[in-house]
């Protein structure tokens, strides 16, 4: 058994995961990062995207987060997100639809058009699809 550390993944609505992990892989603001036990203290903001928990002795778990924060302290890793879900629970059709809708809004640019919101929605939809894609690749 390799070294493990505590990891908590919480969204504003509920707790997604709490337990021991070997490694956490998340998409930080400045790029993807992997955290293993003994990492120095770190705080980073997260982009919408996947969070992968590596257990070693069993299959990895994949989550989608809509952005938020990742904190590393000697006692473990905390991931705080506004909304998030297990990859298995994501709805691909809804994500594809949301992406198309956001793209349409960005192209048409109506008078009451909110650029920031559409851009955020597009980024989230793309991130969701990325997570679904990853999950499928792993299963294949």
């Amino acid at each position, binding site marked *: 058994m390799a070294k493990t550390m505590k990891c*908590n993944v*919480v*969204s*504003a*609505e*509920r*707790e997604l995961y*709490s337990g021991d992990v070997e490694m956490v892989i998340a998409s*930080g*603001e*400045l790029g993807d990062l992997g955290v293993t036990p003994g990492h*120095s*203290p*770190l*705080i*980073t*903001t997260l982009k919408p995207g996947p969070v992968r928990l590596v257990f070693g002795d069993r299959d990895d778990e994949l989550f989608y987060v809509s952005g938020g*924060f990742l*904190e590393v*302290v*000697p*006692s473990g890793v*905390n991931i*705080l997100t506004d909304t998030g879900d297990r990859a298995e629970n994501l709805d691909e059709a809804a994500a594809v639809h949301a992406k198309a809708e956001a793209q349409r809004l960005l192209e048409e640019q109506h008078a009451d058009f909110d650029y920031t919101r559409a851009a955020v929605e597009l980024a989230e939809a793309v991130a969701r699809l990325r997570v679904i894609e990853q999950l499928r690749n792993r299963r294949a």
Partner: protein
Amino acid sequence: MAVGKEIRTQIGSIKNTQKITSAMQLVAASKMRKAQERMGATRPYADRILDVIGHLAHANPEYNHLYLEEREIKRVGYIVVSTDRGLCGGLNANLFKQVVSELGRHHGAQVEVDLAVIGSKAIGFFKSFGGNVIATAGNVGDNPTVADLIGSVKVMMDAYEEGRIDRLYVVYNRFVNTMTQSPTVQQLLPLEKSEAFDESLGDHWDFIYEPGAARVLEQLLTRYIESLVYQSVVENLACEQAARMVAMKAATDNAGSLIDELELVYNKARQAAITQEISEIVSGAAAL
């Protein structure tokens, strides 16, 4: 029979009231379950972000955020969270008592106080009580969103950033269990250090901040304050429903015992009337 007409109408009206209170009790009970679930669901996030902030307060950032520094106290701010509706026992009264005693304490120390109030009851109370209210948010309903509260929170945070207040508290009812709700004053700004902390790091260490201390702290701290205020509003809602349920149960029980007493009086009066009538008839017959 004319006897006890008033008593009978009184019993009738109490019975009607009892129906209302017992219906309210049932409604409050089901709403409380929902509110409690919501409170339980948001708690992990609030607990975690509290941990993170606690760690931050121990770190030694090269960038000193406003929210982390202690200032000399000349003026403080309170965010008071109350309910929108009444009929929930002493819940709001106890909370306001707490606020008033805090106000008295600050007044004694020559410290001025600004208030931001959430909930119609608090708005009404501070209108008549006085106090420098600078922001209000009423009618948040049973399903508050962060967006509903953000306005009054923002006012307070701006005031803190501009140095108009030097400390910020939130006052709300903490949900202990269905029977107990305790008014709680919690300090929001500046941040308090968490007590439970891994001391192995020693005193001189800092986080690595990505993409930069200023941006991370700004986002994190804003999110933290929002989540704390949201959590306190959600918790206060659960308290409201619990307190209402208990108050309405007491009212229903009281109505029941009142009805019993009145029925006893009514029956006695009825029997007395019958006895009197009989004795009148008997004595009338004897006179013939």
